[in-house]
């Protein structure tokens, strides 16, 4: 799959043969990347629609369940990603200005931020795991009273331990779907068991697990995209040590930057929608 060698052709070594000139090539690659980003928006869009539908129909679930997310960690991750977008943009600029050392530094910092982001997410996921706050089928919340959690220390345990009763949902916001008295239970009533509610029973609305299904799908998919971005950045970093991308042709760094900014932007929306619910 190697492109034919450009050595000795008398033209820009980065110019692919089927293009007439570098400008055309650059225009094509750029347009391609923007279209790809559009497909990513639509891909995540489906999840945002699912979020909207469930939140519109059952706002009490979101109001209740989001309090198990740590706003501080979420905010930390947001800051980390915004910083990483900054360092990535700087990396593009460095490549453009042929500053090899700066390029390597900025790429490394961006990667570091990405690692940090994933690290914080790992901490959050671990907390959820420990407390059984998982997606639907695995949802078995075991969030206990303050005494038990005092050993955890840190913000995670504290936030979870102080499980206030769900704030009174104003009439206008309550779900409009009446609960069926002995309504259909859907699949195999034989298999359905009452969800173990532990100590959360008093405040927990029905089907609270829906929130966590959506949370894990959205942040999980986002995390996979972060990993993908990190892989590409690692490749850029390796290349930058070999002098690539600072010889005038910096398009790969530029395109990676575009992708990374979208990943950052999606996270900002996730933070707003999942963590910052009134």
């Amino acid at each position, binding site marked *: 799959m190697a492109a034919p060698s450009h050595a000795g052709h008398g033209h820009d070594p980065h110019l692919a043969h089927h293009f007439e000139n570098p400008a055309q090539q650059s225009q094509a690659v750029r347009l391609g990347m923007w279209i790809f980003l559009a497909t990513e928006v639509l891909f995540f869009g489906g999840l945002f629609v699912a979020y909207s539908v469930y939140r519109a129909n059952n706002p009490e679930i979101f109001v209740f369940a989001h309090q198990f997310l740590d706003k501080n960690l979420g905010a930390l991750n947001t800051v980390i990603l915004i910083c990483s977008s900054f360092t990535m943009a700087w990396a593009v600029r460095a490549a453009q200005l042929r500053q090899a050392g700066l390029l390597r530094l900025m790429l490394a910092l961006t990667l570091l931020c990405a690692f940090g982001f994933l690290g914080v997410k790992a901490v959050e996921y671990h907390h959820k795991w420990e407390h059984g706050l998982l997606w639907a089928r695995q949802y078995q919340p075991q969030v206990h009273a303050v005494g038990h959690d005092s050993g955890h220390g840190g913000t995670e345990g504290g936030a979870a331990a102080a499980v206030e009763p769900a704030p009174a949902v104003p009439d206008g916001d309550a779900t409009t779907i009446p609960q069926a008295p*002995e309504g*259909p*239970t859907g699949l*195999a*009533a*034989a298999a359905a068991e009452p969800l173990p509610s532990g100590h959360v029973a008093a405040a927990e609305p029905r089907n609270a697990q829906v929130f966590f299904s959506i949370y894990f799908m959205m942040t999980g998919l986002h995390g996979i995209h972060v990993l993908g971005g990190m892989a590409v950045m690692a490749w850029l970093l390796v290349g930058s040590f070999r002098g690539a991308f600072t010889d005038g042709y910096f398009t790969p760094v530029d395109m990676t930057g575009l992708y990374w900014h979208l990943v950052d932007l999606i996270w900002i929306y996730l933070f707003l929608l999942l963590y910052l619910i009134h």
Partner: protein
Amino acid sequence: MIYEQLLRSLSHVQEATPKEGTLWMPPPVSTVAGHVDWLFYFILGVSTFFFLLIVGLMVVFIVRYRRREGRGAEPSTSHNTALEVTWTAIPVVVVIVIFIFGFKGFLDMATPPGNAYEIQVEAQKWSWSFTYPTGYVDSNLHVPVNRPVKLVMRSADVIHSLYVPAFRIKRDVVPGRYATAWFEATQPGEYDLFCAEYCGTSHSDMLAHVVVHPPGEFETWLAKASDFLDTMTPVEAGRKLFQVRGCQQCHSVDGSARIGPTMLGVFGHEQQLVTGERVVADENYLRRSVLEPAAQVVAGYDPVMPTYQGRLNDREIDALVEYLKSLKEQ
């Protein structure tokens, strides 16, 4: 003006399809069937016109303008805005008319009259059960003629769809919510009821009959049917339950294995379960199988039987057990 005339002509639509049906449509037996059929034939007429126009022109052109030696195409323009506008505008008008009629008809089909007679419907893989206001449950849908009937439907498992072609009604039955449909039958008789949303192995066997009773006879039928536990012997009542409550969809009484094991000779027979244990099928075993079917699955079968907990009372279960006891091998 023309619109009002068209609307008035719709009131004569009952005769759109004659009683015995046509090439396209089964006999129309509900109050909405007339409209649906009228619109169908209207669209058919429009379609036939445009189809003949298109194909006709095509045939004329390939004959008239076929390539002849030495002669190319006659010079002609390659665009004509007036023509484009015309053949865009005419279809627009046509589809608007079709849309409006479809919309009006739909409004009727979606709005049950306030005094409708309510029957509850349960759909499960792979049978229907209809619960009448007396509490009686049957596997067929009995209704009085000339009276609006509203169906309140629910599904025990996956999406099904209740479809009665003769009435031209159809409604998906989605698990986790109630679905409603209504109709008013105009002709006594027996009609087919299908499941119209694919639901697995025996989707095409999930049939029922709609029995439209002549005036006055429906109430008599319902009263007699509802009392079956009192008027029949336990074995007869059990047989009726076996037939109408969906058992026979999956369990044969002739020895053949279907989705579930045969009931012929089941009582007293030693069963091998999927867990490996062996149990004798006594009254308790049979009762438990009805209420907790997943607890004792016979080896070689899948655990697909739905539970009847809350759907059969003790008297009904007793009758069933008596019936099953009577199914001795000869």
